């Protein structure tokens, strides 16, 4: 199974990712997720700004897919706590995101994700959070 197949398998397990239209791009072993613009992603129609929630959901999905690629065996990671800073308004155009894993422990992983539009050096939003990567212990 190629890495691309693995990414597509992870995304296919997340119906919500398909609903908002998330696509993926692999360069070497670097994963970039793409959120193509559509009018349903707008949060503020006056400013034509994307909904902060959908940007957050996109960042979260990027973290989950990145961790899923690293995990073995593979339950889909679950967010425990996340923090999102909104730096710039999300314009009505395609958005990209890439995740960096700070630490992958046995159960919890610390991840940082950046989302950008025109230029990777001008992120529109940054997420940092902890994700549960182990399967739930049996009660």
């Amino acid at each position, binding site marked *: 199974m190629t890495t691309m197949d693995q990414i597509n398998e992870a995304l296919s397990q997340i*119906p919500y990712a398909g609903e908002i239209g998330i696509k993926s791009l692999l360069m070497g072993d670097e994963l970039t997720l793409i959120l193509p613009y559509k009018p349903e*992603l707008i*949060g503020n129609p006056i400013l034509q700004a994307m*909904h902060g*929630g959908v940007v*957050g959901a996109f960042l979260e999905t990027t973290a989950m897919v990145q961790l899923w690629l690293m995990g073995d065996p593979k339950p*889909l990671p679950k967010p425990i*706590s996340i*923090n999102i800073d*909104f730096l710039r308004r999300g314009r009505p155009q395609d958005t990209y995101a890439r995740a960096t894993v700070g630490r992958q422990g046995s159960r919890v992983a610390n991840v940082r994700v950046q989302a950008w539009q025109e230029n990777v050096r001008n992120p529109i939003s940054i997420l940092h959070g902890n994700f549960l990567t182990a399967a739930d212990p049996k009660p």
Partner: protein
Amino acid sequence: MFVEGTPHGAMLGIKFVAIDIDRATLSLPYDKKLVGNKETGVLHGGVLTTLLDQACGLAAIASFKEMMAVATLDLRIDYMRAAEPGKTIIAEAHAYKTTKHIAFVRGIAHEGDVNDPVATSQASFMTTAMGRKSPKKGDRQKAIQELPKPASNPEGQKA
């Protein structure tokens, strides 16, 4: 406009429940297309992010003296447990402190019992440039009077 919701809120199916000064309540009926894990059928964490962001934003709007638009500065979400598949989520938000241009808001998402939350949030909002230019005195009072009547028994909430 903000009570009616946002285009993305409409896509998810977010519903208005109630608004008051400093406070807002929204709900989101369960939908299979919003699932984050096919195997478990649990809602995607990002869906709760949007619901809480929107509820907190509405509470922030309801906390300013004049009618203003807002933008999220930062948002923290703690996911306490998986949402139960099939259940409507209710998000309640309270803007507990508002300065001239910033509102600090807490939110909680639950399935009818506020003591058994699915997720909680802490956010700060800033009034946006467009919001600062446009308000006229009395706009806020007028907007509050024109609000739709809150549902007497919102879906999923215990009677």
